[in-house]
């Protein structure tokens, strides 16, 4: 087992090396509260409980990424982003084979998860790039859920079953403490024969409350533990030029409709591309309740009117007619948009991009005034830049791949993520959707039946009525 703990400080923070104290629980220094903390734990497959080993046997690779809905500042190099929620990317051991993933997801997220054990019930995003030809085959996404839910399931469902005082129990409890994290990644692949868990905790949260710290301790004497402090120097890297943050609004004006529009607002002055070859993109994972109509987004005039350049990729549930309850799987869809940028980036104006979506009819068990809440994650916004010829992609120990969209870009692409406006708390939009509530079946059924019978009887009576009044009248008029 290996652990790597890195304290990430905001750029420009100076650290006095003499102020760093090595304690039993790791490192302590003056600005420790200001630092984000990344903890990476690598566990050999053999060290895992048999149940989990058996579960992983189905996979060639499996990546689970949980992104918090809370908007935390990010520090280089941990800057990559995903829409809030639970993401899973996997390749089964044998092509198209069944896996136990869906059963596992249902244990954590409840029975309503849209999947089956067949791999085909997951979304297979297109792979357009050779560089990421090794990207996972299938994708899963579950719209914003709190990390706390996963923690709770871990604590009661998994940890409690492990022997007290065992290493695994301690590890499991560490993982269960992740409810305050920004993101938690679980990565497994056959070749490395190990599971890597990467947790990123934010610095002190915006309300000034510091999180409980987990001691940096070896779990077993022979473990390896690395601890470090990282404060990025002012570099000439293009991402340092960026980024003003963006705001998003769903349902635009206060009248939500069955065709909500997502609005991305970015200060024009921050939309200077890091390099000339860069293009601004948005990557969005949507639950089945919402869908994007690719045909509507194929007209250049319409795209331009929304400040979109193109819908580059759309994978997953695309049925344009079916209600939500008629789609048992896949879980929804993933879309990649190329966004237009303003020609004038010197002005103070706000650059607005809208993404039109359409709602399906929903089957709601929870409705208030015939409206049901729907949580929609914010998309991630990033620049994708072509790397210069001859540039070698050095292996970066903080690099995070398998985020769902790399396979959609060319072989030599660098991504610069645009953070959300730091004033915003949560990266999720709540939408109130009109629904037809159950419970009116009785009188609607009776009323409809009655109306049909009355209408039907009226027409029948007109049909069979003998030489009645009107006929004679008609004749007289002649």
């Amino acid at each position, binding site marked *: 087992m290996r652990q790597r703990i890195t304290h990430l400080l905001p750029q420009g923070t100076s650290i006095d090396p003499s102020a760093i104290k090595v304690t039993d629980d790791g490192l302590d220094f003056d600005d420790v509260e200001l630092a984000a903390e990344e903890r990476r734990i690598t566990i050999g497959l053999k060290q895992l409980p048999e149940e989990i080993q058996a579960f992983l046997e189905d996979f060639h690779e499996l990546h689970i990424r949980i992104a918090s809905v809370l908007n935390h500042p990010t520090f280089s190099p941990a800057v990559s982003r995903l829409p809030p929620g639970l993401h899973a990317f996997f390749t089964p051991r044998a092509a198209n084979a069944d896996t136990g993933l869906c059963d596992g997801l249902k244990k954590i997220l409840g029975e309503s998860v849209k999947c089956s054990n067949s791999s085909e019930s997951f979304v297979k995003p297109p792979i357009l790039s050779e560089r990421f030809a090794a990207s996972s085959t299938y994708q899963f996404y579950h719209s914003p859920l709190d990390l706390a839910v996963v923690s709770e399931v871990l604590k009661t469902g998994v940890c409690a079953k492990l022997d007290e005082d065992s290493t695994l129990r301690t590890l499991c409890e560490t993982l269960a403490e992740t409810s305050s994290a920004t993101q938690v990644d679980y990565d497994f692949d056959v070749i490395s024969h190990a599971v890597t868990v990467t947790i990123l905790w934010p610095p002190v949260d915006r309300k000034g409350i510091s999180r409980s710290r987990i001691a940096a301790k070896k779990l077993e004497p022979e473990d390896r533990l690395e601890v470090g402090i990282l404060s990025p120097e002012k570099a000439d890297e293009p991402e340092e030029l960026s980024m003003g943050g963006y705001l998003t609004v769903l349902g635009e004006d206060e009248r939500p409709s069955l065709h909500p529009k997502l609005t991305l607002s970015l200060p024009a002055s921050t939309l200077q591309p890091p390099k000339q070859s860069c293009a601004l993109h948005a990557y969005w994972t949507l639950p089945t309740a919402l869908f994007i109509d690719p045909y509507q987004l194929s007209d250049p*005039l319409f795209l331009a009117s929304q400040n979109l350049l193109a819908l580059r990729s759309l994978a997953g549930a695309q*049925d344009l007619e079916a*209600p939500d309850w008629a789609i048992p799987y896949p879980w929804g869809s993933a879309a990649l948009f190329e966004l237009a940028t303003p020609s004038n980036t010197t002005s103070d104006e706000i650059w607005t991009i809208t993404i039109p979506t359409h709602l399906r009819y929903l089957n709601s068990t929870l409705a208030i005034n015939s409206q049901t809440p729907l949580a929609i994650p914010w998309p991630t916004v990033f620049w994708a830049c072509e790397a210069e010829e001859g540039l070698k992609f050095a292996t970066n120990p903080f690099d995070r791949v398998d985020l769902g969209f790399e396979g959609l870009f060319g072989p030599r692409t660098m991504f610069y993520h645009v953070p959300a406006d730091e004033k915003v708390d949560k990266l999720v939009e709540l939408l109130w959707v009109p629904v037809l509530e159950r419970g009116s*079946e009785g009188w609607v059924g009776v009323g409809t*039946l009655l109306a049909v019978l009355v*209408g*039907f009887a009226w027409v029948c009576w007109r049909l*069979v009525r003998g*030489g009645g009044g009107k006929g004679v009248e008609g*004749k007289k008029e002649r």
Partner: protein
Amino acid sequence: MTTTTPSPGPWHPLIIFPFAIALRAILLIYGRWQDTHSPFKYTDIDYLVFTDAARFVSQYRSPYDRATYRYTPLLAWILYPTTWGGWWFEFGKGVFAVGDVVTGAMIWWILRRHFGMDVRRAGQFASIWLLNPMVANISTRGSSEGLLAVLVVALLWAGLERRAGVAGALLGFGVHFKIYPFVYAAGFWWWFGERRRSVVEELNDVLGMVTRERGKLVGASAGTFMVFNVGMWYCYGMPFVEHSYTYHLTRIDHRHNFSVYNTMLHLSSLAGGEGGFKVESLAFIPQLFLSVLAIPALLAKTDLASTMLAQTFAFVTFNKVCTSQYFLWYMVFLPFYLPFSTLLKKPRTGITALVLWVAGQALWLQQGYELEFNGQSTFVPGLWFTSVVFFLVNCWILGIVVDDVKSRGRDVVADHPAESKKDR
């Protein structure tokens, strides 16, 4: 009715036809302009479905590769020139608009030849279709109903000319093109029987029902229908059968529409498998009883055109899905029915019917707008109640139509026992 022929005035075909053509040409050009200059399109979404399918066909692919293409592949083939780019994109709308005008011409011709109208009256009544802005709008936006109208009016013409083989072929092709014309099969069955025998008499002599004309009708319609289906199935396999036919039997598309059953279907679909037997699965009984059994049996021998109107009206009114383009299906028969209808003879009834029909839709549309664009949950009672009101209005109008055809039957039998109505 006067015997002197009044001057056609502005209703001369040399005026109304150029006018109808110009109306469509202007709408076509205007639509092109709006499409290229505005993000809000004049072109109907269905037209994009057709032209996408045509593009797939031009690449030797299946038109069913385009999501929501649920039509015969012939439509995609007809629109092949739209793949040539530029103004050719409008080719299909042009074809549909030409279909419209040809339909109008056939209506005019039938009114002259079979309804014995003078040029003026024929021009006036044909204009209900030819100069109808709704009709011109729908076809120039790229809805294929215009082509269907040609088929249906040609079918009527074949019936009135008593050409059973031609009628059968048109009927078979019409059902292949869009399922609903199958209801006309029943009307034509009775129409091609012996004119003097009532339906009751015929039913008492089942063997005597089989006549040469009916044989031709059934043979030609079944043959044409199967030839096209087998041909298309050979080209595109099961997706053709699924999208053209079985989809319509199993569709679970509950987006709000005018149908009186809509709310009930929505609710029962929400309930899923629970609840056992579903009353709405019997919705086809009143619909088919009226449109296939009762109306054709009791009215077809009297007046084929108005029977077709009543059948279509009943089919659309009692259907499980109903949108405004379905109204075009029966509108094409209005020029044949209105001349002797109570709706024109008693302007009060006529205006009441028109106002109620429009108001019924307007009320529903207002509720639909609140749901669709203001996010108000108007499913119940709003949308449900207005759809019931609209349904009852339609039933009332259908009752008037049925009544009119029946009383006309008595008149015609009394006045003109002869075979042809030409000299009427």
